[in-house]
């Protein structure tokens, strides 16, 4: 019957006096209680492999069993009285009845503290990587190209670095292999993996970063005119050095669309390295990067 007075429904905790040596709690009992020491002294005892060790001692005001009661986390030690003591035992039923009388916000605080702690503890055993494919690509980017690595060693090392589960790593290796960034050979214990071209993995990581941040990735935003300019620069010897007007004239001579705005854009893309006296020469690494990105666009986007 609902009386409107919730205090009437509270099951009181049990207060009792125990003698020295009394086992207040045994881990085998399966009980989930909070034990509060009012007077005397209690000790948490570990009986691992038959050896009795005192893990910690409890003094008046100390309590154990909160995690066991609120989070179903087993308390693994026995609690024994080391001297005559007075204890208060809050059982599951008592706790439940008391919680029912609390304001909702207080319950929410207790639940929130408990849940946040549980999440922090769980996080210790899980990877922090959200994009496991990108993480693997970053790792493989630093492997030696064309060198065959035993699959199991690679998975083992990468798992150690990132805590990404081995099963996920194996799937991601297949995903990179489908994109032709890696090649997997052999079967069973003899399976090996090699990186085709480390530059492609670096490009893939950069593309993934841009995608995650919701920005358009520059190599895939080039206009047709810009792509033509890129191809033209790639045919120029890297030692060629000219000032901006000379480069613009060079492109115009090759019947390519170019103006000052386009020239500035090319600077922003990093296709030219500044030299002495306002001259510029082709930045081979950047040009190779853009060309590879365009050539392997479908592999990078994963739309094979």
């Amino acid at each position, binding site marked *: 019957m609902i009386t409107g007075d919730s205090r009437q429904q509270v099951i009181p905790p049990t207060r009792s006096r125990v003698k020295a040596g009394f086992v207040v709690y045994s881990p085998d009992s399966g009980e989930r209680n909070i034990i509060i020491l009012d007077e005397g002294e209690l000790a948490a005892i570990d009986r691992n492999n038959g050896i009795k060790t005192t893990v910690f001692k409890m003094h008046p005001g100390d309590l154990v069993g*909160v995690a066991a009661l609120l989070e179903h986390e087993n308390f693994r030690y026995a609690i024994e009285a080391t001297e005559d003591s007075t204890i*208060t035992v809050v059982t599951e039923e008592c706790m439940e009845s008391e919680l029912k009388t609390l304001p909702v916000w207080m319950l929410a*605080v207790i639940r929130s503290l408990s849940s946040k702690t549980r999440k922090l503890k769980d996080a210790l055993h899980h990877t922090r990587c959200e994009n496991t494919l990108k993480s693997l690509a970053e790792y493989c980017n630093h492997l030696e190209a064309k060198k065959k690595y035993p699959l199991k060693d690679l998975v083992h*090392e990468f798992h*150690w*670095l990132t805590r990404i589960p081995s099963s996920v790593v194996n799937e991601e290796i297949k995903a990179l292999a489908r994109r032709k960034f890696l090649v997997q050979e052999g079967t069973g214990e003899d399976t090996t993996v090699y990186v085709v071209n480390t530059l492609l993995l670096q490009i893939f990581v950069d593309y993934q970063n841009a995608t995650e941040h919701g920005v358009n990735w520059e190599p895939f935003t080039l206009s047709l005119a810009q792509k033509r300019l890129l191809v033209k620069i790639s045919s120029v010897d890297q030692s060629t050095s000219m000032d901006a007007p000379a480069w613009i004239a060079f492109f115009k001579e090759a019947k390519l669309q170019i103006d000052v705005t386009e020239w500035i854009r090319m600077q922003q893309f990093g296709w030219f390295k500044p030299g002495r006296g306002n001259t510029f020469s082709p930045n081979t690494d950047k040009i190779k990067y853009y060309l590879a990105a365009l050539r392997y666009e479908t592999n990078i986007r994963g739309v094979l």
Partner: protein
Amino acid sequence: MHIATGEYVCLEGDKANTLFIVKSGMLVGSTKADAGAPLQNFGPGSIVGEFSLLESEPRDLTLRAAEDTEILVIEQHTLQSTLDKHPGWLKSILTFLTARNRIAQENKRKNDLIQALPSLLYIFSAHLKETGADSIPLSLLHKKILALNNTPDEETDNLLKSLESLGLLKVCGSNDADKNVKVESLQIIPLLYETLQYRALNQKVSPNILSMTEQMVLTTFVKIARESNVPLQNGLCTITTEQLKAEAKKSMHGLTLTSRTIAPLVEKKLLEPSSAFDIHAPLESVNFFFADFEKILDLLELNRIFPLLDKSLV
């Protein structure tokens, strides 16, 4: 309390002692450290600021209303009057839960730092090998560690500080954009990575970790090599057995140098004997020993910092 769309409820770092409960609408939370990361959403029923209410902790989030929002504010006197109406053990439980959360936060922080170290060493080692340089731009290191292990820049900086305090590297430059991380020795970072990897993957101590006796013998070897005027040949230095025994008598605290003492170093190919080495024969049967000087220096450095590593990190 009504908060209009776009209005701020509190700023990260503000002094505080209240709890917010979202009754309707939506609050979004952000931190300076996670700038650019997705915002945290707090819809109806969410609570924010437990630690401000319980321990007067400053706000850990900047909160803004994403839409018109109604919030309930719980102040500390409300908490106190509620606790007064309930048994004393309820307060003990709250204290326990708070303390437990603090411990879990600290464990997570330490764990993240320890977990991020191999990734930093992996990226750094790879960069040194790929470029032949003795440094890496800090911004590149940040970017790559974030991609590999989702390690935030702040954590990477903390790791670098720890490694810098051990004398392994130096962060140079004043502007964030121009900062470089320079190694003291090209081999020490790869060596440290290899040692940690060996321990983790094989569940045993790496052969790079030397016993005290091995370290003492190698230190003696290095001392003689440094005092000698004989130049290194292809990085190798040669020490006669006679020199080694004489110096060992002085610097190895009474330890007698025998074939048995030298044997583990010969086995690990750190010291190469001039003739066939027999553990049962007198040490004098070998005229001299030679070794890769830089390699020995790096190994000794590794053995100096390795026991300090965990303490330095956490």
